[in-house]
C-alpha cells in the first residue's frame, strides 16, 4: 500500500512539477499531474503539492485543467488560503469564449468546499444562469444548490429562487430538471419546490423531451401535485400512460408509483395499473441485469401483499436457475411461496423440493422454510415433502425441517399426528442450537404421541454437561417437566438428575434459576405444576397475526420505488429512524416558519395562492398567553376537533417539552409534575388570523402512548392540519432526542 513513504513521493512530485523542462512539455507535465491524482485516489495525502498544482491550472489544455480542478476540489478545505489563489484563474475561465471551459470552471468553483468562497462564486453563478450556452446554464443551476449547501443555515435568496423558477421554462430539458433539483434543495426547509398547476402541466408537456433520468425525477416531483378535479386527474393519467411501457425500468416504476398515488381514491384504476405493468415487471424479473432483476422481484413481492393472485399464472417465471446469484434465488423462493394457489401448488412444491437439496445450505434452508410457509394452507402435501427430506439425514436440512415442524404444529394442529411419526431418528442429525430447541420442544409438548420421546430426552440429559447452548438446557428443562406430567414413570428418574445438575453444577444463572423454579414448583404439588405448564398446544389463530391479511394498495403505494421494498419495511424503519435522530440533533426544526415565502413565489404561482389563501401558511403568534380561567372556559365550550395517539416510551422531562413548544410559539397553560401518572398538560396557541388552538396531552402509565386532543375555536381543517403537523414534529423530535 502506498500509505508508507508518502513524503518522498510528494517531494519527488513537487520537484517534477517545478521543473521547467517538464512544464514546457505538455504531455510530460500532464503525466506528472496524472500521477498526483492517482496517488490521491489511492488515499495518499497529496495536499503538499497544492501550490504547484494551482500553478498548473493556468493552461490551455482542457484535460489538464480538469485534473487540476479535481485535485483542488479535494484539497481546498485543507488549504483555503492557497485555494484563493486559484480563484483568479477560475474567474477568468468563467468568461472564456468556449462554453465547455466556462462550464468546467463554474462547476469546479462551486465544488470548492471552503469557507469564504461564496462571495467569489455568487456573480459567476448569476452570469451563468443567463449564459447563452445551455451547458453552462445546467452547471450554474446546480451551482445554486451547491452555494446554498455551503452557506448551510443561511437565508434563502428570494431573487435567486425566482430566477430558478423562471428557468423551469428553459428550452433545454436538462436545465429544467436541474432547476427542480436545485430548488428542492434550496427550499428544503419550506417543504421543497412548489408544484402548482401551471408548473405541473408544463412539466407534463415536456416529459417526452427528457432523458430517462429526467423523466424519473420529474415523475417523482409530480407526486406532490394534487389535481383539482377528477377530469384533470384522468387527463394526467392518460398523458403519462406511455411511460408505463418505457424502456427504462426506473421510469416504469416511477410512473407506476405516480399512478398508484394519484388514483388513491380509485381502487379499480390502481388494480388496472398493476395489471398493465405486469409485463414490464416480469420482463425486468427475467432480464440479464441481475441487480435490476433483484429490485423488480422486491417490488413484485410488495404487489403480492395486496393482490396475492396477481402473478399466479406466471409462476414458472420465478423458478430459479442454477447459475443465478444467491440473492435472486432467495427472492424468487419468497415470491413462489406467496403466489401459490390451487392450480399451481403441485408444480411449485415440486420445484421447491428440488431446491432443498441445493449445494448452498443457505438456499436449501430458505426453500424448506418456504415449504413450511405454504404448509399453512396445503398442509398434507407439504408435510409429506418435509418428511421425505428428513430421510436424507443431512444436518443442515434436518434442523430446518424440525424448526418448520415446530411452527407448523403450533399453527395447524391437524398435522400433529404426521409430524410425530416423522420425528423419531432426527436427533442424530441435529447439532445446532435452534434445531435442538425445536426438537426438544416438540418432544416435550407432544411426547405422549411419540413412543421413544423419553429416551431421546434422556440422551440429552446424559450429555447436558457438554451442552454449550444455555437456551437448549432451558428448553430441555421445560420439555422434560412437561413430559413428566404425561409419562411420569419413564421420566421421573432423569428429571431428578437434570434438576440436580442444573441447581448444583450449572454455571449459567438463567438455567439455574429455571431449575430452582421448577424444583420449588414441584414441591408445591403436582396439581400446581399442571396448572402452570399445561398451556394450549396449538393456536391456529396466531396464523392470522403471522401473516396479516391482504394489505390495501394505499398502505404501500408511497413506499413503491424507494428503498423500502428492497430493504424490507422493518429494516428500513431502523435505518431511517437513526437518520432522523441524527438530522434533528440538538436543535429543533424551525417549524413555526412554515409560512410560505410570499415574494419568492413566481408569477404562475399566484393563482394558487389566491385560491387557497391559507394552505400551508400557518403562522403562530408569539407571546399569546391566556389566563387559566379563560382557557378553562373555552376548553369546556368547544368540541374536540382532532384526536390522535403518538407513540411514547420511557422517561419524560416536562421541562424539555415545554421549552420545545415555546420555540414554536405554543404556550403551556398548566402541566402535571414530572413522574405523575397519568401525566397531563394543557397548551394553547393562536395563529395570525386569530384562530385559537387548545390542546390536551395525556400520558397514560400502562400503554406507551401519548394521547393528543386538539380543540379549535374556528373550524378550519387546513390550519388544523398544519398545526397538528407542527405539534407532531415537536413531540416526535423530543422523543427522538430522548432515545
Amino acid at each position, binding site marked *: 500500500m502506498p500509505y508508507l513513504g508518502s513524503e518522498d513521493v510528494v517531494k519527488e512530485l513537487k520537484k517534477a512539477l517545478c521543473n521547467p523542462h517538464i512544464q514546457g512539455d505538455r504531455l510530460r507535465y500532464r503525466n506528472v499531474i496524472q500521477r498526483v491524482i492517482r496517488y490521491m485516489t*489511492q488515499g495518499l495525502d497529496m495536499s503538499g503539492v497544492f501550490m504547484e498544482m494551482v500553478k498548473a491550472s493556468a493552461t490551455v489544455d482542457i484535460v489538464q485543467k480538469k485534473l487540476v480542478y479535481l485535485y483542488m476540489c479535494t484539497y481546498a478545505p485543507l488549504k483555503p488560503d492557497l485555494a484563493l489563489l486559484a480563484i483568479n484563474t477560475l474567474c477568468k475561465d468563467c468568461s472564456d469564449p468556449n462554453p465547455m471551459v466556462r462550464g468546467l470552471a463554474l462547476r469546479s468553483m462551486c465544488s470548492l468546499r471552503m469557507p469564504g468562497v461564496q462571495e467569489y462564486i455568487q456573480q459567476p453563478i448569476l452570469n451563468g444562469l443567463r449564459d447563452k450556452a445551455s451547458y453552462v446554464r445546467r452547471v450554474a443551476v446546480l451551482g445554486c444548490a451547491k452555494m446554498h449547501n455551503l452557506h448551510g443555515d443561511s437565508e434563502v435568496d428570494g431573487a435567486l429562487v425566482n430566477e430558478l423558477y423562471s428557468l423551469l421554462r428553459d428550452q433545454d430539458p436538462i436545465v429544467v430538471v436541474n432547476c427542480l433539483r436545485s430548488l428542492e434543495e434550496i427550499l428544503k426547509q419550506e417543504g421543497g419546490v412548489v408544484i402548482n398547476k401551471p408548473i405541473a402541466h408544463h412539466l407534463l408537456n415536456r416529459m417526452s423531451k427528457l*432523458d430517462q433520468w429526467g423523466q424519473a425525477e420529474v415523475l417523482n416531483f409530480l407526486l406532490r401535485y394534487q389535481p383539482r378535479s377528477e377530469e384533470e386527474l384522468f387527463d394526467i393519467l392518460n398523458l403519462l400512460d*406511455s411511460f408505463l411501457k418505457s424502456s427504462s425500468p426506473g421510469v416504469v416504476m416511477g410512473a407506476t408509483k405516480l399512478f398508484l398515488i394519484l388514483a388513491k381514491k380509485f381502487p379499480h384504476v390502481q388494480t388496472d395499473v398493476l395489471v398493465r405493468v405486469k409485463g414490464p415487471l416480469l420482463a425486468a424479473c427475467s432480464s440479464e441485469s441481475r441487480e435490476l432483476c433483484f429490485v423488480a422481484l422486491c417490488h413484485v413481492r410488495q404487489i403480492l401483499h395486496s393482490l396475492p393472485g396477481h402473478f399466479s399464472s406466471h409462476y414458472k417465471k420465478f423458478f430459479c436457475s442454477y447459475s443465478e446469484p444467491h440473492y435472486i434465488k432467495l427472492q424468487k423462493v419468497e415470491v413462489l411461496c406467496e403466489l401459490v394457489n390451487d392450480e399451481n401448488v403441485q408444480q411449485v412444491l415440486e420445484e421447491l423440493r428440488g431446491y432443498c437439496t441445493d449445494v448452498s445450505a443457505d438456499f436449501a434452508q430458505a426453500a424448506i422454510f418456504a415449504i413450511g410457509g405454504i404448509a399453512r394452507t396445503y398442509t398434507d402435501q407439504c408435510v409429506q415433502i418435509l418428511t421425505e427430506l428428513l430421510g436424507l439425514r443431512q444436518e443442515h436440512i434436518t434442523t430446518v425441517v424440525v424448526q418448520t415442524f415446530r411452527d407448523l404444529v403450533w399453527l395447524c394442529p391437524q398435522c400433529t399426528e404426521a409430524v410425530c411419526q416423522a420425528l423419531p431418528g432426527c436427533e442424530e442429525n441435529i447439532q445446532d442450537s435452534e434445531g435442538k430447541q425445536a426438537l426438544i420442544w416438540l418432544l416435550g409438548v407432544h411426547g405422549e404421541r411419540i413412543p421413544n420421546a423419553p429416551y431421546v430426552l434422556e440422551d440429552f440429559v446424559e450429555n447436558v454437561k457438554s451442552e454449550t447452548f444455555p437456551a437448549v438446557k432451558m428448553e430441555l428443562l421445560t420439555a422434560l417437566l412437561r413430559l413428566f406430567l404425561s409419562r411420569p414413570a419413564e421420566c421421573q428418574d432423569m428429571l431428578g438428575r437434570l434438576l440436580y445438575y442444573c441447581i448444583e453444577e450449572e454455571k449459567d444463572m438463567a438455567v439455574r434459576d429455571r431449575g430452582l423454579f421448577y424444583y420449588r414448583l414441584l414441591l408445591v404439588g403436582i396439581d400446581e405444576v399442571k396448572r402452570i405448564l399445561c398451556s394450549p398446544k396449538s393456536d391456529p389463530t396466531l396464523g392470522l397475526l403471522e401473516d396479516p391479511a391482504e394489505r390495501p394498495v394505499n398502505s404501500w403505494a408511497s413506499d413503491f420505488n424507494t428503498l423500502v421494498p428492497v430493504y424490507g419495511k422493518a429494516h428500513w424503519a431502523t435505518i431511517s429512524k437513526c437518520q432522523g435522530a441524527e438530522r434533528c440533533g440538538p436543535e429543533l426544526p424551525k417549524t413555526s416558519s412554515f409560512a410560505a415565502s410570499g415574494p419568492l413565489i413566481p408569477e404562475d404561482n399566484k393563482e394558487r395562492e389566491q385560491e387557497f389563501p391559507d394552505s400551508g401558511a400557518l403562522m403562530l403568534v408569539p407571546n399569546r398567553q391566556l389566563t387559566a380561567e379563560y382557557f378553562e372556559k373555552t376548553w369546556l365550550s368547544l368540541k374536540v376537533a382532532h384526536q390522535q395517539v403518538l407513540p411514547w416510551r420511557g422517561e419524560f422531562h416536562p421541562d424539555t417539552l415545554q421549552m420545545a413548544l415555546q420555540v414554536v410559539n405554543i404556550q403551556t397553560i398548566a402541566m402535571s409534575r414530572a413522574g405523575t401518572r397519568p401525566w397531563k398538560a394543557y397548551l394553547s396557541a393562536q395563529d395570525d388570523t386569530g384562530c385559537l388552538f387548545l390542546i390536551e396531552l395525556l400520558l397514560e402509565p400502562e400503554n406507551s402512548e401519548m394521547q393528543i386532543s386538539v380543540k379549535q375555536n374556528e373550524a378550519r381543517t387546513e390550519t388544523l392540519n398544519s398545526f397538528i403537523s407542527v405539534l407532531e414534529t415537536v413531540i416526535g423530535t423530543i422523543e427522538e432526542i430522548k432515545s
Partner: protein
Amino acid sequence: MIGGLFIYNHKGEVLISRVYRDDIGSQAADSAVFSSSGPFLGERLGGSVRRNAVDAFRVNVIHARQQVRSPVTNIARTSFFHVKRSNIWLAAVTKQNVNAAMVFEFLYKMCDVMAAYFGKISEENIKNNFVLIYELLDEILDFGYPQNSETGALKTFITQQGIKSQTKEEQSQITSQVTGQIGWRREGIKYRRNELFLDVLESVNLLMSPQGQVLSAHVSGRVVMKSYLSGMPECKFGMNDKIVIEKQGKGTADETSKSGKQSIAIDDCTFHQCVRLSKFDSERSISFIPPDGEFELMRYRTTKDIILPFRVIPLVREVGRTKLEVKVVIKSNFKPSLLAQKIEVRIPTPLNTSGVQVICMKGKAKYKASENAIVWKIKRMAGMKESQISAEIELLPTNDKKKWARPPISMNFEVPFAPSGLKVRYLKVFEPKLNYSDHDVIKWVRYIGRSGIYETRC
C-alpha cells in the same frame, strides 16, 4: 441522488473514487470498520469521508466470506449499490431514499459508456484510462444528479486523445449538440455513402426437466441499429409482429393464413427514446429519427413458439457407489443449411470425482477438476444433426452422507437466426431535404441468437 461513485478491483483496492456529496461516509466513519490512519492530514477532512465509506465497502462486500446477499448493502445507514463486471466492482453510494432501479440503470449506463470508450471493463483498461473516466464522471454526474449520458453526445467533447483543438465551427457544433432540440441527433451530418446495419440480437433462455419438458423458456432480444445516414432521416421499421400482420391481412384472408404462421407474438417491448410511441400505440408502426452511430432501437421479450436451437438429452446412471455413467446427446433443431458456432456443453461432476474417461463423437471434451465439470466444446454444428458424449466418472468412496445434488447441464452456443422467429420485414428511410431515396441506402441485416441461461436438469 448519488453521493459518490467508486470503482474497485477484486482485491478491494480503489481504482477510481469520485465523491459528489459530503453527506456520505460521515456515518460510515462511526462504524469504524477501518480506523483511518491518523498521521495524514488528508485522511482527516475531505479524505476521511471518502476513505471510510471506501473501506467499509471493501470489508463488508468484496472481502465478505458469504455470498452476496443483496446488491444493495447498507453499511452504517449508507446504501451501497454495487454491480460487478468481470472482476471489477462499481459501487454507487448514497444516504438518501433513492429509486433503486434508477441507480442500477445509471451504473449500467456508466458501464456502457466506458465500454464505448475503451472496450472491456477490466482492471488494466480502467487503470490506463483513468483520466478519461474522471472526465466522464465529471460530465455525467453533477452534484450527484445524472446529466447527459448519451455516448454520442459525450464523444463530441470528450475524446480519447484528450486534447482536442477546437475550431470555431466545431465549438458551435458542440454547443448545438449539447443543447439540441432533439437530444440524440445533431443537424448537418453528412456521409458519402448512406449505410445502415441492423442486428437482431437474441438470447434464448431455457429450463428443461430431465424428461424433456420445458419448465420455462423465454427469449429476450434487442434490435441494435448502426446508422450512417446524412441529414435528418425519417425511418420506418417493420417486423413480423402478429398484431400488425393480422391488422394488414384483414382484407385478404388467405394472406393471413399464409403469413400467420410466421408471425410472432411479442410479450412486451420497449423502444429507444427516438421512437414515436404515440404512433406505435395507435398504428403499431415504428417510426423514428435515428441517432447517429450505434444505438438500441428496441428491446423485446417473447415466450411463445420459441425455436429451441438445441435439445439436450441426459442419461445418468449410478453404477455402485464409486462409478457414474453419463451419456449426453445433443440434437440441433434448425435448418440444415445453417451452422451453429461456439457450442459448449458443461456437464457437472460430483465433488469426489477421482477420474474421468470421455468419448465424444465430435469436438473436444475435457474434464476440468477445478470447475467440477466436463466441458465439451464443438466449433461448428449444422442443423438437424445429432452428437453424443459418454463419460465414465470414477468416484472416491466417501463417508459423506450428502447426496450429490446433480446440478443441471448448461449449454452455450451462437446461431445465425433469431430463436424467437422475429424477422425484419422492412426498414424504410426518407430524407425529404437531401436528395437520396430509400433505394440509395445500403442496408445490412444480421440475426444472432445466443444462449442465455440454457439449462437441462438431469
